């Protein structure tokens, strides 16, 4: 950053505030929705990690003789219609939920950010093309694209990941391009350009770091939407396939037993609600904490 011109006019090379990390955490711990959201998300991630090493019962073990048992000491939340332990199914189900969420958001984030940055940097027909393409993709809801994909390649976890991922791309394209455009209009970018930096370098060194916080917040909220979409697709039979446990499929299974064991639908429903609520609170909290303007107002 030893640009002579930049140094001479006294502009910051980037606008990223260089706050000490301890300040962030101090404010974070006082932020109620951030703390609650983080706790709920940790609970879900913890369950998924725990299921890798331990579940109360083997999640795949079918024991017809003890089907639809009420909660007891051996089965804390009872058993489902195949005699499988509900707690174990919920723990293992958290795994597929998180896996689908992470990969789908990963697909949306990486491709969406690349296209969005490109659109903001190149402008002109490149921007037009990218934006119209994302309008086109955006017109297909994840469930619809998953149904189309399932018809072609067959249902499965990969299908739902791809469908949700593709659906996320235009959302990230729009957010990235919008906020990148705002950065491109800033003086320090002008200065960087004047100092001879190319579009690619400016994007990487100046634009991306400045929109990172917005992207992190957006990704958290998209994660919640991806979890809902995964549950919906599994519920429709297009997502995670049996015998792999999944919250959406547990709901589907419970639906036919609503009159006999209504609680079977409540457990996976509550799990989905906790995960989505947690991520939304976390996203809200992060937005408040990472937004420099809001931070200054405090």
């Amino acid at each position, binding site marked *: 950053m030893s640009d002579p011109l930049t140094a001479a006019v006294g502009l910051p090379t980037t606008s990223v505030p260089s706050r000490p990390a301890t300040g962030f955490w101090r404010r974070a711990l006082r932020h109620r929705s951030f703390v609650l959201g983080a706790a709920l998300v940790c609970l879900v991630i913890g369950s998924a990690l725990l299921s890798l090493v331990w579940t109360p019962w083997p999640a795949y073990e*079918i024991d*017809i003789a003890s089907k639809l048992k009420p909660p007891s000491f051996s089965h804390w939340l009872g058993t489902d219609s195949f005699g499988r332990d509900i707690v174990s199914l919920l723990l293992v189900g958290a795994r597929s939920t998180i896996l689908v969420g992470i990969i789908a958001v990963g697909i949306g984030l990486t491709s969406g950010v690349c296209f969005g940055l490109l659109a903001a940097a190149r402008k002109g027909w490149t921007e037009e093309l990218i934006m119209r393409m994302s309008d086109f993709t955006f017109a297909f809801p994840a469930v619809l694209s998953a149904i189309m994909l399932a018809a072609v390649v067959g*249902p499965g976890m990969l299908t739902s990941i791809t469908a949700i991922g593709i659906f996320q791309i235009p959302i990230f394209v729009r957010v990235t391009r919008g906020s990148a455009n705002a950065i491109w209009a800033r003086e320090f970018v002008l200065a960087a350009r004047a100092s001879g930096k190319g579009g690619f370098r400016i994007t990487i060194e100046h634009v991306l770091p400045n929109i990172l916080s917005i992207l992190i917040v957006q990704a958290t909220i998209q994660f919640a939407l991806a979890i809902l979409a995964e549950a919906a697709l599994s519920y429709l039979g297009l997502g995670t*396939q049996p*015998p792999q446990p999944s919250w959406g499929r547990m709901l589907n299974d419970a639906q*036919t*037993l*609503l*009159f*006999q064991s209504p609680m079977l639908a409540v457990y996976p429903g509550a799990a989905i609600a906790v995960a989505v609520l947690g991520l939304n609170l976390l996203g809200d909290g992060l937005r408040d904490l990472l937004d420099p303007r809001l931070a200054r107002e405090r």
Partner: protein
Amino acid sequence: MLKKITIVALTAAFAAASLPALAQGKKDSVVMGMTLEPPGLDPTNAAAAAIAEVTLYNVYETLTKINEDGSVLPLLAESWTASPDLKTYTFKLRKGVKFHNGEPFDSAAVKFSFERNAAANSTNKDKSLFQSFESVTAPDADTIVVAVKYSEPNLPFLLGQASGSIVEPKSAATNVTQPVGTGPYQLGAWVKGSSITLNKWADYRNASAIKLSKVSIRFIGDPAAQAAALLSGDVDAFPRIATRVVAQFKSDPRFTVLIGGSKAKTIVAINEKKKPLDDVRVRRAILAAIDRKAMIDGAVEGFGTPIGSFYTPGSLGYVDTTGINPYDPEKAKKLLAEAGVTTPLELSLKLPPPPYARQGGEILAAQLAKVGINAKIENVEWAQWLSQVFAPNSPHNFDLTIVSHVEPFDLVKITEPDYYLGYNNEAFNGLYKQIVSTSDEAGRAKLLGDAQRMLATDAVAGFLFQPQWPTVISKKLKGVWKEVPQFENDFSAWSWE
């Protein structure tokens, strides 16, 4: 919030109070629930059992009628005689019968119907039966003579199925949407995706004996919605309701639960054309891995009787073959090792939509996993299942599948060269020829026993159970059959108390 609860409670109370009034007013009409909607209303050109459930004996009639107990009664034929070799049957037809469009019913209509079913472009479910007719002759307007190429002791029974419905030549082509038959009911309205209404035909030959003037059939696929429709009084009867929801009606005084036997066979079909499933030891290993008891309890809530072959208890010559390949996971592992199969053996398991297949599939996969077979579940729709797995001209692209064969006495299917099981055993085909050419009952019973044992020993499929079909009806509804030898609902016998 409290206000909301009060409103809900009041609405519920009003609804409850008005229910008996509604019930009073519909003494001559019934609403019946059905799981699947028929694709059309011509039972002679498509295999879907739902077509028969709507039309058989209601819109269309057949020469004979299969009764609740499986016995054969006269319907459009008043009587019949068979030659001693059981190859030629002479049917005396009922006089003065008319079709809905006013055309008279006579031997020409019967001849037309049978020949249409046997035609090269026919898509009749029992095309092979009609093609086995040497000749169909009509010596006079009230007589029809059917000559079969081989002895067929079951012909009167077989002609009582929906595939033998008698159609009227001029209207036959449009029967799919505008059915014309000789039965007591005519199509009133068909709201696609929702319901079919049948109205009583005033000119029916025995109209005074028909109690219900209107039958509405609603299509409800979801088990929870099926139960809700009955509980709310929207539906008066639900034959072959999802087994999962039956338990709650048993103790409900407003309903009667009828548990009927069937002639159906629910099986794990094994594709014998694929390696290593062509090895009988591998198939035996699959059978030894299956715990039928757990399968019946888990897949159909206990509504089934274990079977060991492609034949149902109570039929002529039935033998219990469930002991031939009994549940024995250790033996299954040994058999796989003997066959030189490296475990885990990866197999595909394609499951059609009904609960017995989807639930049974998960149980099967878990049971197979214990012996080192990794069955990968693929849930498919009926159309896909037919085109990928079952249809005679399909690629038979599957390793395992679960399906219920609802047709009675269909051992003949196993002898068909392109049948999806791919068994093709000359010894069995020879045995079957012997069965159909033996006219004395004791001899046939013995041969049928041999056939069942051969299928069980060769582990042709994982024979699971004979399903029982539960029907839930309103307590006051009378005349609904308990036993269901085939898929049908005889509305002419239904009435309100």
